[in-house]
């Protein structure tokens, strides 16, 4: 029965075919709502932004990479905004640290868009975006996979992991120290600015918030207390992705607001469902699943780059020549 429905699209399905004004393709609205919802559920379950999954999925359904990246930045503004409100109520946002990260982030986003547009003029931007994804998804997926397997093994043995000592190395030898009261830190502003810069570049090139890089960096590199990490990173992400959206909208005209709205409606609903599911399920097993999913997406992207494509030629605008 399901197959029949696919072969003979019903009236409703036909009516739900929606033309995206900027991407200039016609896509099924249910597919977009479903994708948004699915990634939303995952992000609710694991507390991740989901941009790093959504953008490659958009490539797979035929949205041009430049539009996918810019639109995803816009969608992340929405999901981060709803997230940061909850953290403000719980007072778990370090505004001062967030601002320092933001300064780096804005500079990074500008650099990223310049790089993006330069490679776009060379016709290499799809390659850049996909390579970045293969590298980051590969590294993060493998790390998560190994870590969650270890955690699974430990939870079976029943032992507690040894407490980590806070590092006091080269980071504390750097100049321009500043006091961050909420985080209880007195460190140089150089490392947070650099972390922000790096995440800003990624946000512009990959259409991600960058929480998956920033959160570990804040915990292990800057030594911030875990409870303020997520709120502070969301605070930074809102402004950096908003800035990225504006840069893409004004230089590439690639922000598709219809696509963004459909994704975020699905995403916001999915995230709420995901939070409920996540609270009721064993965290370690879920992490293995997420890691496997990340590796799967990475593998698909890598295969596209490694295997000889059926069509060696591709067409692009000749604009700007």
């Amino acid at each position: 029965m399901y197959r029949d429905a696919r072969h003979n699209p019903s009236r409703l399905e036909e009516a739900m075919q929606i033309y995206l004004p900027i991407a200039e393709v016609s896509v099924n609205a249910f597919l977009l709502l479903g994708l948004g919802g699915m990634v939303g559920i995952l992000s609710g379950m694991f507390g991740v932004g989901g941009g790093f999954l959504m953008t490659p999925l958009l490539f797979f359904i035929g949205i041009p990479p430049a539009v996918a990246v810019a639109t995803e930045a816009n969608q992340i503004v929405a999901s981060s905004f709803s997230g940061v409100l909850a953290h403000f109520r719980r007072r778990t946002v370090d505004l001062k640290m967030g601002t320092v990260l933001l300064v780096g982030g804005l500079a990074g986003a500008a650099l990223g868009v310049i790089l993006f547009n330069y490679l776009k003029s060379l016709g290499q931007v799809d390659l850049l975006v996909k390579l970045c994804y293969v590298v980051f998804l590969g590294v993060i997926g493998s790390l998560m996979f190994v870590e969650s397997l270890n955690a699974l093994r430990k939870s079976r043995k029943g032992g507690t992991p040894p407490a980590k000592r806070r590092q006091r190395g080269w980071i504390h030898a750097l100049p321009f120290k500043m006091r961050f009261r909420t985080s209880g830190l007195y460190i140089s502003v150089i490392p947070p600015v650099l972390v922000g810069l790096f995440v800003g570049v990624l946000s512009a090139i990959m259409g991600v918030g960058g929480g998956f890089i920033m959160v570990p960096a804040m915990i292990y590199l800057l030594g911030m207390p875990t409870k303020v990490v997520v709120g502070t990173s969301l605070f930074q992400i809102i402004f950096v992705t908003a800035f990225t959206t504006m840069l893409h909208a004004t230089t590439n005209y690639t922000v598709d607001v219809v696509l963004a709205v459909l994704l975020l409606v699905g995403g916001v609903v999915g995230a709420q469902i995901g939070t409920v599911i996540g609270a009721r399920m064993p965290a370690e097993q879920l992490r293995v699943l997420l890691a496997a999913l990340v590796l799967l997406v990475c593998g698909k992207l890598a295969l596209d780059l490694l295997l000889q494509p059926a069509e060696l030629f591709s067409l692009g605008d000749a604009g700007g020549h």
Partner: protein
Amino acid sequence: MLRLILALCLVCLPVHAAEEQVVLGLSQDRVSITANFDGSEILVFGAVKREAPIPEGPPLEVIVSIVGPSEPVTVRRKEKKFGIWVNTDSLVVDLAPSFYAVATSAPFSEVLTQTEDLRYKVSVERAIRSVGADMNIKGAQDFSAAVIRIREDEGLYSIRENTVAVDEETLFRTSIDMPSDLTEGDYTARIFLTRGGKVVSSMETSIDVRKVGLERILYTMSREQPIWYGLMSLAIAIAAGWGASTAFRLLREN
């Protein structure tokens, strides 16, 4: 003797052109791309107007083509470098139509000769122009062939032989599907009447393909007021994010 007949034929041809003329109808002369646009079908029909009886000789054939606006296109070729497939050579094809459909009443080679095709630029190969082909690139003609192949796969270019119905050498009709991912612009519908592979009459009319309504507003705004468009996108995103989190908080508190 043969030469005389040939000369006679040549003299006769322009007469034919005046004797047989196309009268054309279109089911629609504008295509509106709306939010739920998923392609369109244009019915092209018409009749042959003539003062004299139907001429002797080869039968009347009809070619209908719908041509989208032409634009330069950058074609890139991938090569394997460092183990992955990377775009290397690129070539700008000066003009390539965004849409090209040709419907004929018989196999293409029978309805039009090569020379007439060159003259009237009917087949898609003739419509693509790439003068400034870079001599440093191997197989420059592969690039324009690639444009045709890729757009044929996407349903943008097509040749539909034997799809024009001709009745009594006078009435003709055909329908041409247009896919959902159309580029905006002024499209041209061209009709050629041929006899023995030679064009005896032709006419052109335009079809207006436009985004309308919300699609139009958003597209124009994104190009002409990108700053406001960006700010609007952000405002919508923030409102949706805030709205959803408030709605769910209220739901949970109740």
